């Protein structure tokens, strides 16, 4: 199968993730969309590793997963504390700071 197709999938995933960030309200979902984008990048890395014929890309994918895991930890902590204060996880509710 042409590796380029994987790249298209990855681009599609990235776009879906990005649009998700723009359109969704729930901060958890937004965060998951970001994760989707990261994974799209992972897919791209792995595909390129295949195309380039070296392993760098695959190794990088592991790094990304670790970083993403860390992000989850921090992100969920923040989202949960906000949820507790406001009884809502909607990002549209947090706009005291503006202009």
């Amino acid at each position, binding site marked *: 199968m042409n590796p380029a197709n994987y790249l298209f999938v990855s681009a599609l995933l990235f776009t879906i993730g990005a649009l998700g960030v723009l359109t969704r309200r729930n901060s958890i979902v937004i*965060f998951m969309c970001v994760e989707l984008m990261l994974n799209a*990048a992972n897919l791209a*890395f792995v595909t390129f590793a295949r195309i380039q014929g070296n392993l*760098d890309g695959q190794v990088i994918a592991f790094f990304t997963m670790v*970083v993403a895991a860390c992000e989850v930890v921090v992100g969920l902590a*923040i989202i949960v504390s906000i949820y507790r204060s406001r009884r809502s996880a909607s990002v549209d509710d*947090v706009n*005291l*700071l503006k202009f």
Partner: protein
Amino acid sequence: MNFHVPVIQYAEVLPILIVLGAAVLGVLVEAFIPRSLRYVFQVVISLGSILLAFVAVVRLHGTSHVAVEGSVVVDGPTLFLQGTLLLLAIGGVLLIAERGLDTGGSAFTAHAATLPGSEAERTALASGIIQTEVFPLTLFALGGMLLFPAAGDLVTMFVALEVLSLPLYLMSGLARRRRLLSQEAALKYFLLGAFSSAFFLYGSALIYGYAGTVSLSGIREAISSNAGNDLVLLMGVALVTVGLLFKVSAVPFHAWTPDVYQGAPTPVTAFMAACTKVAAFGAILRLFYVGLSGLRWDWRPMLSGVAIVTMVLGVIWALTQTDMKRMLAYSSIAHAGFILTGVVAVNKAGLEGSLFYLAAYGFTTIGAFAIVTLVRDSTGEATHLSQWSGLARRSPLVASTFALFLLAYAGIPLTSGFVAKFAVFAAAYSSGSSALVIVGVLSSAIAAFFYIRVIVLMFFAEPKEDGPTVVVPPIMTTAAITLAASVTLVLGVMPSSVLDLIKSAARFTF
């Protein structure tokens, strides 16, 4: 395939290791040391490790080496920026450690997990608990910052970016007062930061796809030998740039800046505003001057455009702000634009100018936010501009110092800001970007207005009846302000030695 054991030059990454090690130590302190002693331990560990790291940086002076299998580059710009970051961090940590300002004892919440306004929070406050987790967080962030400008490949850069960002997301949400704002700042910072780092990562993937490597020197070679598909490369560069410009708060990736600067606890804002910008510009300089220098005809117009938009919109937005922290945030956006004019010069003068500007800007910023922490009323910091009117009547010294920082921001001669502006504008002009210089100069003129407006307010307006009081600065804040003010003045009046240092340091190794 052959694997070989990576060679790690521990001596050359010693500053980073010291800081990260101290951070880990700090975590252990949180776990094992009795609560009453933690503060002392943490402060000593933080300041001590930073000083130690600074000594290590000084000892590395003159090193020019690609270390850790190409992941970390220890050269002039790295060391200069690391030194700057460490000194700025001293200021930042001093502000964070200050306990004499807030009646509660600290600028940070006692229990981040408690609900704002809940019984649990009141109990936590009443118990007099003062949390100290912020110190290891600071050190982790600082570790990431030290690594950021030294990163020799895109993955290290990404990791450094995340290491510096994640603690900052948390620290933004730790304010003792106005906790809803603080939490909002943390959430916004986190979501947008994660979003933008996804762009960075995807861009890295594309560049990897083009060059087959993520190391900057490898990318450089690939570009010069014109291997692969340009389209992928150009898109990759654009996306990586998004991630980096987000960190320096360039328009249109700036939107988080005012909200986060305003909502975060002011000592964190000071630390973040000064150090993140220095670190991120270090990464930008390395990426564009080393990895992508062969591509300059493609990215210069793009960055020039960003610089122009950033300068102009930054000052225009700042013009009508009513909150001091928010105004400083917009001003920091504008300054990102000014530094970018130095970056797009793509010559040695540009590099030197940008480095000098970063140092000048960093110290002024620490000082300015430090003074914001001093002006308080019963509900905490009084950040609304109207509350600052007539400040000079009550506290001429504080007002004068703040005026000094504002004048430095405005680029008035005999302050560091002027030399810095001169350096970047001269570099930009010599590279043929006279349009950038004109825009920069005109934006400076507009910018002068809102800085001066504050001075007018402090010096020439009548004080309010129920206005805020200026707390007599306690020792740590005094130290931070003194450091910032003296650097601002010295870099303005006698900048020669620093400029000479930069001149000898401004050479990238790859």
